[in-house]
């Protein structure tokens, strides 16, 4: 029973991080229809920003979040203006390939710059935890989970309570109509993608607290984002929290009761089954074409 509860809690804590990593993916897809294959590389870059600030300047990993947010925001804006804006409205295959090209460039440049070493953050409080009725709860995992929730709430408030957020949602619902109503669609694309990169980067900073950091970590996170977003509904941002929690718990239980290798197979089977039988996500609120 303790084992079950422990893996359930591990899964929930993991799920929060997954949701934070995937929310930007959903946003970019919802607004621009772009399946961003370089998405995981923003996680990687965010993780490295935190890692280097911690190692070189001795910043506390949690204090690096605002800087990660800013750096990744402008990187997203730059990539959007330079490349993605030019293929808005092109067939979706263009976006897969373009973003895969970006993935290759970013991840191989990172590999050249930082080598393939596996790195971990170990601040003074890294291993501390407390136990509650026999369940072990590491402080850093709890803190990253809480911050992931804060991040998702922030994104939600931005999308649903601000004028810019309203314009972004309008654009994702009907691009032409939004344009007719005087929304500058390309500006919306730029902001949406920059926000997507920024929150993904912050999620990467959180990832660095508990995961191993290395230049090739991006693609697995892109795949995770796929799964989370399909579970929550592609393009439906609030759904990502539930998608993340479902995937986190699912993986954690599968790892405990089966094996780590098989848990990935099951994840992909879950993804396939979802896509075939319920492509709109568990709530059925995702974009359907």
């Amino acid at each position: 029973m303790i084992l079950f509860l422990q893996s359930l809690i591990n899964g929930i804590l993991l799920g929060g991080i997954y949701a934070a990593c995937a929310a930007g993916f959903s946003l970019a897809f919802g607004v621009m229809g772009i399946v961003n294959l370089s998405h995981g590389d923003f996680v990687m870059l965010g993780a490295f920003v935190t890692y280097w600030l911690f190692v070189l300047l001795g910043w506390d990993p949690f204090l690096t979040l605002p800087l990660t947010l800013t750096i990744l925001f402008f990187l997203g804006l730059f990539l959007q203006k330079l490349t993605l804006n030019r293929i808005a409205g092109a067939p979706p295959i263009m976006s897969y390939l373009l973003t895969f090209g970006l993935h290759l460039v970013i991840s191989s440049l990172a590999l050249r710059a930082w080598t393939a070493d596996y790195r971990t953050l170990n601040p003074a409080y890294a291993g501390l935890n407390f136990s509650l009725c026999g369940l072990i709860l590491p402080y850093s995992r709890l803190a990253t989970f809480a911050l992931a929730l804060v991040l998702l709430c922030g994104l939600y408030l931005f999308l649903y309570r601000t004028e810019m957020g309203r314009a972004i949602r309008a654009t994702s619902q009907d691009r032409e109509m939004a344009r007719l109503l005087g929304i500058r669609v390309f500006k919306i694309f730029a902001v949406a993608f920059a926000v997507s990169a920024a929150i993904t980067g912050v999620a990467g900073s959180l990832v660095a607290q508990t995961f191993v950091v290395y230049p090739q970590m991006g693609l697995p996170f892109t795949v995770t984002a796929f799964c989370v977003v399909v579970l929550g509904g592609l393009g439906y941002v609030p759904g990502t929290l539930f998608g993340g929690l479902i995937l986190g718990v699912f993986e954690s239980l599968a790892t405990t009761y089966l094996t780590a290798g098989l848990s990935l197979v099951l994840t992909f089977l879950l993804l396939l089954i979802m896509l075939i039988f319920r492509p709109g996500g568990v709530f059925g609120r995702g974009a359907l074409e």
Partner: protein
Amino acid sequence: MKALTGGRGVFVFIAAIAVLAAFPLLGLEGYRLRLLTLLFLWISLAGCWNFMSGYTGYIDFGPVAYFGAGAYAAAILMIRFDLPFLAGMVFSGVVCAFLSAMIGWATLRIRGAYFAIATFAAAEAMKQICLEGDRVAGFDFFGGSHGLTLPAPPASEFFYYLLLGFVVFVVGITYLLEKNKFGYGLKAIRESEQAAELSGVPTLALKIKAYVLSSSLIGCLGGIEAYWLTYIIPDDVFNVLRTIQMVIMTLLGGMGTVWGPVIGAGFLTLAGEFLGARFVYDYLTILGVVIVVVILFLPRGVMSLAKRKRG
């Protein structure tokens, strides 16, 4: 463009095949022979991807599922059951036809990004099964991350001619698609699936047929490569980079055209070989830049340049 798709293109192609077939007899060997063999492999792979995705517009993002499955099917039949290569290759095709019929039957009902993600997931799932299957089930079958080693292959000329044959076969099929009802049906699906369905085109059946044909041929090619290189590991035969290469080659040459994959694969294989040898460490960065540049500046492929010039 018209000259390429018309009789002259076929004539040039037949002449080129005849010259290529004569090369080994004229003393071509070693590295150059292997390079041309690699070129034929990629032309065939890109061609297979093209007549499914280029013609129907359904972007298959997991063709490596069948490449890898084919490689494993051939390897397992040859190692565990001591059967000859030809049986292994046929078995690869059969296994992949069976797998793709199942996966296609389920996934070809969903469209756009969903189909792309689903096929991608299928490929990753198969890779994980080959990686972890042994450990989970407790037997020695796929060889896990160590992969499998195949029996010693015959002379390089064998693969050269086999893959040259494949090029002719794949280009031939695509050429026929331009003329026959099956091909018209696939193109109708690409242009407007709903209109095709309403005009009485059995869209699902056609899509599955194209998918199974493409996948089983990719499976055979996987089997051939496994025997050629004699060594396979899951991370290589199921590598997502292979998928991207098939797609970008086709796109570079022109999707949904007969000669597009031939030109695209020809150019990228040679360019990749040249760059890979010269810039070992920066090869992937350069490939990424090339992909970005092609998408931004040549989205319809180099074939569109020829079209534009002719007015």
